[in-house]
């Protein structure tokens, strides 16, 4: 997994709630059997005026000038600030893959859908939950200030604004440990191989019908 320690980057506001994974990466792009290359179709139906298809070159497609990610001032943004229940819907990990591949390292929202939130940690993309009033303020400040950057420090669990306002965020200690060290979770779990085998044997003797 990609290591994550800190990020100092341009922030972009996506001012809507309930952004679902179908919007993040539409289904026609899920036919790929690869893990990479989804960034070019991130938010495809919002970013482009035509309908995207796998293999279609973005160079020849018309961008939607009204969609925030296309504003010249937000090019190169690494932090997405958005509203409640971001990532709801399907379990497709293609959604965090697409966000990361596009260049995002951090997503800030008042709340996330469970599966999406979980998936982000598996690939080194950091989802940060901040109070909705703080998010409201950040969105307003980003919109008002060109070149607005946020500094995220995972070790200290802080988000710092250009005017040095500092917000603390919570993160599960195990997940934090894995992110900072870029650990392979499967490798970690396999350190418990004996325990898993023992558990499995007991389960098989007590509930043999689970093993037929």
């Amino acid at each position, binding site marked *: 997994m990609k290591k994550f320690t800190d990020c100092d980057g341009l922030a972009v506001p996506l001012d809507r709630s309930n952004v679902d994974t179908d919007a993040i990466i539409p289904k026609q792009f899920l036919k790929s059997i690869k893990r990479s290359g989804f960034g070019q179709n991130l938010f495809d139906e919002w970013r482009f005026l035509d309908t995207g298809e796998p293999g279609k070159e973005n160079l020849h497609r018309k961008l939607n000038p009204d969609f925030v990610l296309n504003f010249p001032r937000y090019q190169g943004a690494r932090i997405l600030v958005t509203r409640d229940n971001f990532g709801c819907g399907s379990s497709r990990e293609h959604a965090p893959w697409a966000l990361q591949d596009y260049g995002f390292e951090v997503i800030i929202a008042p709340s996330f859908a469970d599966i999406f939130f979980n998936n982000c940690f598996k690939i080194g993309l950091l989802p940060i939950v901040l109070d909705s009033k703080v998010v409201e303020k950040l969105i307003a400040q980003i919109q008002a200030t060109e070149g607005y950057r946020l500094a995220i420090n995972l070790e200290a669990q802080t988000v710092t604004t250009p005017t040095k306002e500092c917000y603390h965020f919570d993160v599960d200690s195990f997940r934090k440990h894995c992110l900072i060290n870029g650990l392979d979770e499967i490798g970690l779990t396999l350190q*418990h191989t004996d325990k898993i085998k023992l558990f499995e044997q007991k389960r098989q003797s007590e509930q043999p019908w689970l093993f037929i």
Partner: protein
Amino acid sequence: MKTLYDKLWEAHVVHAESDKPDSTVLLYIDRHLVHEVTSPQAFEGLKLAGRKPWRTRSILAVADHNVPTTNRKNGISDPTSQLQIETLDQNCDELGITEFKMNDLRQGIVHVIGPEQGATLPGMTVVCGDSHTSTHGAFACLAFGIGTSEVEHVLATQCLVAKKSKSMQVLVEGVLGKGVTAKDIALNIIGKIGTAGGTGYAIEFAGNAIRSLSMEGRMTLCNMAIEAGARAGMIAVDDTTIDYIKGRPFAPKGQMWESAVNYWRTLKSDEGAVFDCVVTVNAAEISPQVTWGTSPEMVTSIEGSVPDPESIFDLSKRNDVESALKYMGIKPNTPIQAIYLDKIFIGSCTNSRIEDLREAASILKGKRIADNIKLAIVVPGSGLVKSQAEQEGLDQIFRAAGFEWREPGCSMCLAMNDDKLLPGERCASTSNRNFEGRQGPGGRTHLVSPAMAAAAAVAGHFVDVRLIH
């Protein structure tokens, strides 16, 4: 005093990082369901790391998202879909994983075939790289969707790194009105608590209205738990559960069946168990539901109208409603019954089981779809559902009414195959998500029960199915 969720959780903890109730744990997985879309990268990762599946027999695989629902004998016309399905076939063949291939009678939607085969059994942890895995909770399983990294993790270790959710009880008491179904209960609950209302919770559905539901109805309800934000939905074991499982191919038999049933009967919340949150619903007050927006929480009853953004005080909510109505092409205050449709879709892991098809057919018998309906399709949940329906003559009723009778798969629920809406087309759909572009770019989805979809097909617009019943 333990909840059903407590019991299921505790029975699967292999290792806990600490004694705290919110400790990160290794959770043992009994059943791993696999489909073609979220698995190729997991199999590739496994191979690259030189690992093998921990317990091959725990895995059941099927291609459902991409499969065509017509002319299967001619193969798959879309080369990218074909490659994805072939990749699943190859991975399963190489690793000795049980897979129902596209032309196998047992092929179908992963959440239909698991229970149908008895591969979903009470007390199991069931995972799949698909959010609607919550469906299997109808059998008192702890069942939830996972991402591809976790699919690889389960393949390699038979475990997941997990943290316990909070518990919510949704208590549905009273008697459902005629023509009102599990789908209407689900949509009604989502309308009440919102699509994030269940975030961070595992929901147990209980109450006499739930006890009265068939297993098909219970699966519909648990299926939609994810649309309320809950990763898992579940229902305690009773005679209905046990009767459904008996005799299915993967179910235990003989003495083992007796022992299993004895254990399964303990899979219910203890009297007096405490939930972190309780929501109560009066079944008698639920009318048939219709969604009008681009989130399942944007829902009202068949007697209702779409809202007027002007009357919404919260600015962010008002913006959401405004943009939803714009996308849906509906004016504020439009009565639901004045919404006309272009297409009808009966299918999906929410509503494609035999009972759903019987319900829809009972409305359609001797009737024809309205002239304004350009296409109406029925996509059975599995080859076995399809053949059962044909034995009962349901296909004849659908065909005579002007419906197309298709091969099983996910089809127009997410439109990864050729079944999709064209921009601007409006569909009454028995599926689970009305997100923008879900059924095809620019397509407009209204979620309803199979009976409501059938009634709308005949009228050409939404009507109250209770008046037809």
